[in-house]
């Protein structure tokens, strides 16, 4: 059902009233009709009574006249006179009744003359008896005139009674019908009214239940709303960012959350209802206000990357703020919502980082200069340092050849020592250059570098150079890695040459190259059964110029392993060694996941 309860109740009451009116009207009608027909029945009965009285009266009047005429006693005239009065009274009555009964009126027009004629005939005979005598009167009686008049009167009265009887019957039936209708209509109306009242009660009570339920739901909704509101408030209060709200008109603070209090130093009680000019420096307040106005006028978010604000304690904080207009339902700006973040520390850190970066850039420039110097130094070393060595070696050899006869063995030995030293120095220079080249060279990453093949090639070459040596190479096949093949070749060359060198005194050299997995990392191992070394010196093994053997035992510059370590480190790997004096040595290394770019930047 739609419509308000008021409408429903009004409609119901209207309907009940309408039905009540109908019922009352109907009953009133029935009762009136009943009363009317009742009256008509009584009237008909009165008419019948009067007609009967007239008939009895006329009969008694004639009886009186006959009695008088026969007996000549005037006492018989008393009923005659009484009857005439009765007849006259009844006729008057009938005339009164005939005013509302047209049919009766018409019958009376017939009856009245017939009665008059009869009464005239009776009076005439009586008068004749008195004036002329009994015989004259009897003669008239003997004529059939009197009897005929009597028949006429009877006939008219009979007709009228018959007609009135029919009328009476109809009226009685109608009266009965009205009576019945009234008896039915009254309780029926009552019943309908009670039914309608019940209906109204039902509607109203149903509506009130519904209202009660709706009220409960409303209460629940209110509770939820209340809860949500307090949740929202608590969120706004506890958000770790400054939130404030100002009214659009006067820009007075309406909301100022906890973070805002912490940043600015003023409590919300101090701030609410006041504007920026009450707290901040004028130029600051001017700036804030102008941004507020801009936000409210443009009706769009305004982003303020940085703004300074002076706190209650007189400090300057730097805020990053977003200002948002809050529009009302008409689309006008009603409030200004501000969200600020304290970026003071961030700015300080940023400045610090910038300073550091600046310093770093300076250092990089310096480093680049140094690198360039080093490069030209390397170049000079490579070129210029070797030239005199070549002279020393060359001319020593020239003397050895040209003055062979004049020199004794000691002098020749000295000259040979000069040559050996110059050649060693040349080797040292070359190794140093290699080390610096390995450090500077750009990594060129190959996805498939076959270490097994590299070791194999080196072994073959060594064997070719010293075919008399007995050596057994055990090389695991198919060891493939990602890396700079040129540099890895240099590294493996150094390691294998070392192994070759340190096994030179073994009657049967065994050199193996294998790989295995350890904790998910591939480890490569180069083992030899050579001279080995004391593990106490292991930490010094990879330092440049560090040697664990004399040049006489095993020649070398002490740079080879430094180069190897450099190459492995540039491949983000590790290298270590295990050895025992006289039991050989094993060099282990790993390789990291190097990328081409990474390598470049590494080199830059």
């Amino acid at each position, binding site marked *: 059902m739609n419509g308000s309860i008021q409408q429903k109740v009004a409609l119901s009451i209207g309907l009940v009233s309408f039905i009540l009116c109908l019922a009352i009207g109907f009953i009133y009608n029935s009762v009136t009709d009943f009363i009317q027909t009742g009256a008509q029945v009584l009237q008909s009965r009165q008419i019948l009574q009067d007609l009967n009285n007239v008939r009895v009266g006329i009969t008694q009047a004639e009886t009186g006249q006959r009695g008088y005429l026969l007996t000549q006693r005037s006492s018989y005239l008393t009923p005659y006179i009484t009857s005439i009065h009765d007849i006259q009274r009844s006729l008057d009555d009938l005339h009164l009744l005939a005013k509302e009964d047209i049919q009766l009126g018409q019958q009376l027009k017939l009856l009245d003359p017939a009665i008059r004629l009869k009464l005239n005939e009776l009076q005439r005979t009586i008068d004749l008896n008195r004036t002329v005598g009994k015989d004259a009167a009897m003669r008239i009686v003997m004529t059939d005139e009197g009897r005929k008049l009597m028949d006429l009167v009877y006939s008219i009265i009979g007709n009228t009674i018959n007609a009135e009887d029919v009328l009476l019957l109809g009226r009685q039936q109608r009266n009965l019908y009205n009576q019945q209708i009234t008896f039915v209509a009254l309780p029926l109306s009552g019943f309908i009214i009670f039914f309608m009242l019940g209906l109204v009660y039902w509607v109203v009570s149903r509506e009130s239940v519904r209202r009660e339920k709706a009220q409960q739901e409303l209460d629940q909704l209110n509770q939820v709303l209340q809860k949500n509101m307090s949740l929202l408030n608590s969120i706004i209060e506890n958000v770790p960012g400054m939130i404030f709200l100002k009214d659009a008109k006067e820009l007075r603070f309406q909301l100022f959350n906890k973070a805002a209090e912490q940043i600015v130093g003023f409590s919300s009680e101090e701030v609410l209802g006041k504007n920026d000019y009450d707290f901040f420096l004028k130029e600051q307040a001017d700036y804030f206000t102008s941004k507020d106005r801009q936000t409210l006028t443009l009706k769009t978010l305004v982003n303020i990357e940085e703004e300074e604000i002076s706190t209650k304690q007189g400090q300057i904080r730097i805020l990053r703020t977003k200002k948002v207009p809050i529009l009302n339902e008409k689309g006008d700006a009603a409030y200004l919502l501000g969200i600020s973040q304290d970026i003071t520390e961030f700015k300080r850190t940023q400045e610090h980082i910038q300073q550091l970066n600046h310093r770093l850039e300076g250092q990089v420039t310096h480093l680049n200069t140094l690198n360039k110097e080093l490069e030209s130094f*390397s*170049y000079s070393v*490579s*070129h*210029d340092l*070797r*030239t*005199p*060595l*070549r*002279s020393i*070696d*060359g*001319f*020593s*050899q*020239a003397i050895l050849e040209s003055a062979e006869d004049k020199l004794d063995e000691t002098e020749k030995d000295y000259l040979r020592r000069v*040559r050996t030293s*110059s*050649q060693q120095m*040349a080797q040292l220079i*070359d190794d140093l*250059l290699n080390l610096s*080249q390995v450090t500077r*060279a750009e990594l060129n990453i190959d996805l498939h570098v076959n270490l097994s093949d590299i070791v194999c090639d080196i072994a073959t070459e060594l064997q070719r150079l010293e075919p008399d040596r007995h050596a057994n190479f055990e090389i695991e096949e198919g060891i493939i890695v990602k890396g700079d093949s040129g540099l890895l070749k240099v590294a493996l060359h150094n390691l294998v040459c070392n192994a070759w060198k340190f096994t030179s005194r073994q009657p049967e050299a065994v050199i193996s190259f294998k790989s295995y997995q350890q904790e998910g990392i591939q480890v490569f191992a180069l083992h030899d059964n050579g001279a080995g070394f004391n593990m106490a010196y292991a930490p010094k093994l990879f330092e440049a110029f560090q040697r664990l053997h004399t040049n006489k035992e095993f020649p070398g510059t002490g740079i080879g392993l430094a180069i190897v370590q450099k190459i492995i480190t540039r491949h983000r790997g590790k290298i270590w060694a295990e050895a025992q004096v006289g039991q050989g040595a094993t060099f282990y290394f790993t390789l990291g996941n190097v990328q081409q770019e990474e390598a470049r930047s590494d080199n830059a």
Partner: protein
Amino acid sequence: MHSKAIVLVEDNEDDEKLTLMAFEKNGIANKIIVLRDGEEALDYLFGTGPYADRDLGDKPQVIMMDLKLPKIGGLEVLKKIREDDRTKYLPVVVLTSSKEDQDIIQAYNLGTNAYVRKPVDFIHFIEAIKQLGLFWLILNEYPR
């Protein structure tokens, strides 16, 4: 054997001496023209300056040249040789102490025929000169 000259461009007198000794040891009897710097090398090759009246038709068999030279560097000389129609087919061997990748690459880019690093060990040096002489003076043919 038709004996054309060998041009040696070398500023260091010791190296010059050692190289000449190496030629001698290997029995290379060609005339050896020693030039001291890049400028002199270019003057000689193109008949300018002190060599204005030189017969340019007398082309050397091979030019052996150091890279680090006074006045005009070896790489610059090499470039000029290759740019000029008169000299562009002359065999040039870079004979130097440097083994810097950059030098080697640049020398080949500019069209050197060989790059030999002078060994410190004089015996090795003699061997190297022997090989060079064998190849450039005997085996190699080039357009006339």
